[in-house]
């Protein structure tokens, strides 16, 4: 299996607060990989480091063969087109409609005709389960669930190989959350995506993830399949998955 992301000895320090102290993990192609852990353990921080929003204090992260610590501006720009990121609240550009949001990367990075861009946008809107009628609404006019779907459609606009999701089901009602899980699974099989997500939703974790890494107490407490979790002796794992595996 091809490695997509490799995290090697990552340290993160904010002032006096050590968040990560030597994290190691490997994400392979085609996996749906979950980053789990108690609040404040730095899951989202690690995700932000993977997408170059934050620098690591030590160690290195390799994404799609590029070392993020020594990446040049041009390389970084190329890399950024190969992934899609869905933020917790969608982070849609508030001055643009849903359709314009999805079309933006296509307009900026390609010289496709207006007509083809429109078709691609319509396709992405359909694939994430949004209604084409809503394409011209602005982010302030749609619900939280729709924002997430629109954010996902935008993340998929450039047909990335790698998708980062920051708590994709948080703030959704249980039905929408399960729909979202099903959507992720469908997209993985349709588009051959590798998905990295931070999640707190147990149901979603059980339904979608192939592999998990649990960050606890500044280190990786566990990395591997969900089945292997029952043998772990981390305090967090025991309480979090307690009802299920004991």
């Amino acid at each position, binding site marked *: 299996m091809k490695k997509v992301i490799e995290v090697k000895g990552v340290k993160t320090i904010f002032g006096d607060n050590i968040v990560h102290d030597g994290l190691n993990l490997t994400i392979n192609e085609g996996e749906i990989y979950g980053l789990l852990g108690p609040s404040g353990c730095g899951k989202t921080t690690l995700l932000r480091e993977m*997408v170059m929003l934050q620098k690591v204090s030590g160690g290195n992260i390799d994404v799609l063969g590029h070392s993020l610590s020594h990446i040049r501006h041009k390389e970084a720009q190329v890399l950024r087109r190969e992934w899609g990121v869905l933020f917790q609240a969608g982070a849609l550009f508030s001055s643009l409609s849903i359709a314009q949001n999805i079309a933006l990367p296509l307009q900026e990075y390609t010289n496709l005709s207006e007509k083809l861009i429109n078709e691609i946008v319509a396709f992405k809107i359909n694939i994430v389960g949004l209604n084409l009628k809503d394409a011209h609404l602005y982010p302030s006019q749609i619900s939280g669930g729709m924002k997430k779907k629109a954010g996902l459609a935008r993340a998929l606009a450039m047909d990335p190989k790698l998708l980062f999701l920051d708590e994709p089901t948080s703030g959704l009602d249980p039905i929408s959350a399960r729909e979202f899980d099903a959507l992720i699974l469908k997209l993985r099989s349709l588009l051959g995506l590798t998905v990295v997500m931070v999640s707190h939703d147990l149901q979603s974790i059980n339904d979608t993830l192939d592999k998990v890494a649990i960050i606890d107490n500044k280190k990786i407490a566990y990395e591997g399949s969900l089945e292997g979790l029952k043998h772990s002796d981390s305090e967090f794992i025991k309480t979090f998955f307690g009802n299920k595996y004991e």
Partner: protein
Amino acid sequence: MINFSLTTSYTDETVLLKFLGEFSLYNISSYQQQVDAINFQKFKTVRIDLREITFFDTASAIFINNLHNRLKQEQLTISIICENRDVLETLKLVQTQIGSEKTVPVKKRETFIDSVGKKTHSQLRGFFSFMAFLGELFATKIHYLKSIKNIRFKEIAFEINENGIRAFGIVALTSFLIGLVVAYQSSFQLKIYGANIFIVDMLGISILRELAPLITAIVIAGRSGSAFTAQIGAMKITQELDAMRTMGFDPYSFLVMPRIIALMISMPILIFVADIMGVLGGMVVANIDLEITTELFLERFTEVVAAKHFFIGILKGPFFAFLIASIGIYRGLMVKDDTQSIGYNTTKSVVESIFAVIVCDAVFSILFTNLGI
């Protein structure tokens, strides 16, 4: 209706505290007074009767617990009489929870030296981060101007409309009124000396050279500087800036440069408008108050007011615009992930940009005078 009470009764060596009815947050203080009034030293045992209470909360449990501990220290024997399981469990919960640490630890107070040090450090960091912002801006500018393809004309046009054209009205009105006021005040003085015609010299130079650029800059700092901070700050809070970065859209070339360039283009035009309206205001007063006709005013104006004054005023525009836009945007980027900081940074942005404009104007004033322009 009183539905709670504490009755105390004494026998030889025993005090009986009998609580009745509701025992909650609201009646603890009156119980406290009653308990404080008792001189426990005369007795050997204390019995606390909780059998007839109808309500018991954690605050009252803490009260009972404290009383229990205090009496224990005074070497008294205490017994709590109670059959209600809920009450006993609340008491037990409080006893185990309180354990060793009783109160929230008080934050250590900063000494004067601590706070001075911290303030200085943060001021210094603020200065460095503004320098870093300018550096990044400069680096982007070089990259930006390398190829005409990089320049985002659509955004620039949008910002010119938003911050230039739409500000025409307010800038025109403000400078008209300033022209009016300055002329009115000076006409009063000039009349005394019969030097009516010199109103033209005075207005021409002061408005073209100083007042129009300054008034425009102050209006724009209040109007566009604050808008930039709030817009970019809100984008930061909603993670739109992060989203842009992960998509490879550099916020500096998408948001920062168009705003700065747009304002640098708009400002001289706005100053020109302010010049016209300010002089017009002065002309109206000269006409009514000093009986200087429009023809005479304009004739004198071309005679005595050199074109350099006009050009100096216009030249200040791009500099003021750069200061206002870069401070506004920098403050927007400094917004943290909370709503308070938008307000804080917006205020700062307006104050700092007006201050910077005035300092810049002072520097120009000295510079041009010494250069003999």
